[in-house]
């Protein structure tokens, strides 16, 4: 099998598009969450772009583009500025749960155009970058952003392929559709979310795009260290459509499969950590069943909120920075252990050698995805 390398990555949100700025912010442990009205009676916390920032993106790219398109184009253009890639030998895969759903007008849907559709976003990216293959959208709830990296690697490993790169782009917006929906499930915290903490009460929302370039060329990630995407595994809990398995069965199965891959045991784990009671508890159980409770772990949603389809890609980008700098980022808003099994997260940065990271994601529909990234000395 051909090895697949992660050669570039970035994140676009209210903090901008410079991945170095995002990394510095992550290790400084600065939350981007701000108080947000859901309706007249309730609020939550979220990260999202300001109207000025949207205006600037529209002026820079094109005023007729949707918000999801703008974020994806800004993310991909910022990558190729520093890592020129030939789109004749590159394809794009998008991960998104709801894309531009704010453009859907309920019962008037029959009279309106298709700009809200997920496939429309793929079409815009095809028109903009003209990649070697038709862009496709994976919509597999909150594991999409991780799973799409496994899929991108599979594209490059096809023996008959002429593809040299796959650009993976995760994107989701903060919209009333999503906020009112999560509010109806009582899943939103009215304080900034606190993953794995004893006082956690639910999620904060996040708006972002994040991109990663996978390649058959062994180039260093963002000109730092050479990192391989060694393995990926997707499983299903077969338990409940909107709640994780109490025993962590699906995540346990995915961790079992990845532990048998050449990666072996991780030096650090990037957890899903949504800060709901059930998700974080489930992750603690799955790790404990694998004797992984002591491995340094971190969750990033206290900084970014939950950017759903983007979160797996976004958190993978930060995970690769953690490997390049040999630093485990802090889990922001975590103070007191709040899961039945211990999880080795900390509120401070930890310096240690990191050669292998596991990235875990879980989502509605019962899906789980684990990825293994390995540092390679070339």
């Amino acid at each position, binding site marked *: 099998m051909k090895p697949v390398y992660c050669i570039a990555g970035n994140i676009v949100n209210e903090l901008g598009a410079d991945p170095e700025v995002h990394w510095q912010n992550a290790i400084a442990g600065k939350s981007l969450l701000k108080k947000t009205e859901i309706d007249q009676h309730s609020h939550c916390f979220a990260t999202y772009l300001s109207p000025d920032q949207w205006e600037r993106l529209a002026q820079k790219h094109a005023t007729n583009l949707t918000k999801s398109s703008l974020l994806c184009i800004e993310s991909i253009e910022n990558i190729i500025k520093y890592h020129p890639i030939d789109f004749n030998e590159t394809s794009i895969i998008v991960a998104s749960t709801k894309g531009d759903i704010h453009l859907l007008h309920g*019962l008037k849907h*029959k009279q309106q155009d298709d700009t809200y559709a997920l496939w429309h976003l793929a079409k815009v990216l095809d028109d903009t970058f003209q990649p070697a293959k038709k862009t*496709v959208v*994976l919509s597999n709830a909150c594991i999409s952003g991780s799973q799409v990296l496994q*899929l991108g690697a599979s594209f490059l490993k096809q023996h008959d392929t002429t593809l040299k790169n796959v650009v993976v782009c995760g994107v989701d917006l903060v919209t009333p559709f999503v906020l009112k*929906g999560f509010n109806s499930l009582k899943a939103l915290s009215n304080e900034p979310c606190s993953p794995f903490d004893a006082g956690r009460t639910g999620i904060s929302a996040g708006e972002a795009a994040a991109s990663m370039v996978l390649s058959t060329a062994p180039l260093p990630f963002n000109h730092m260290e050479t990192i391989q995407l060694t393995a990926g595994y*997707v499983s299903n809990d077969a338990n*409940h459509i909107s709640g994780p398995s109490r025993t962590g069965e699906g995540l346990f199965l995915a961790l079992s499969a990845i532990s048998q891959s050449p990666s072996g045991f991780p030096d650090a784990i990037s957890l899903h950590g949504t800060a709901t009671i059930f998700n974080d508890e489930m992750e603690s159980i799955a790790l404990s069943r694998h004797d992984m409770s002591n491995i340094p772990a971190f969750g990033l949603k206290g900084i970014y909120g939950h950017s759903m389809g983007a979160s797996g890609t976004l958190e993978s980008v930060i995970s690769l920075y953690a490997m390049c700098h040999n630093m485990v980022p802090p889990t922001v808003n975590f103070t007191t252990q709040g899961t039945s099994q211990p999880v080795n997260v900390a509120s401070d940065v930890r310096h240690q050698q990191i050669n292998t990271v596991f990235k875990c994601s879980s989502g509605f*529909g019962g*899906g789980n995805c684990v990825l293994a990234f390995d540092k390679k000395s070339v």
Partner: protein
Amino acid sequence: MILPMSYKLLAQAEISLSGNMQEVDGHLDFMYDAMQIKYPKYYKMNLLCKLGFLTAEKLFFDNPLLLNDFPEAVKCSTILFNAASSATADIIHATSVDDPQVIPGPGVFVYTLPNILNGELCIRHGWTGYNAFFVINDHMHKNEEMAELLQVALSGQEINLCLTGWVETDLKNELFKGSLALIAKK
């Protein structure tokens, strides 16, 4: 369907309906009753899930002993496609979100993700394998595009058994189609 390399077809089933959402919903419920399935979760599902669920039920109804030869059936994977994503739930939720007098309900919102169908199928059959939902536009070469994506998705991890196909709720043209195939590694 175009079979992926090194896989064989075990069985396939199709349900094709036209009409508005209420009509099609009624028709699907009628089919559910006719198949004499006892599965109360069915009534909570949105149209996309009812359609995909019943297409799969039809597949196994016509071939009841199909999975008996597969000790690894529990790892069966689901790889699904459509263009409309979860449109039938999306328009209902979007309508209540736009109306300040209405408080959106959780029972609709959880179905505003297309891969909830994968979840429903996994729960019904106890499958813990790979699952993916791809949204692609409905175009002339759709079948070739699906075949290529399926081939790639199947190569990401060990997949011996997979339920795959197109499950679409096309609200503009009022066409509803579930077309599923069970395939196994040769």
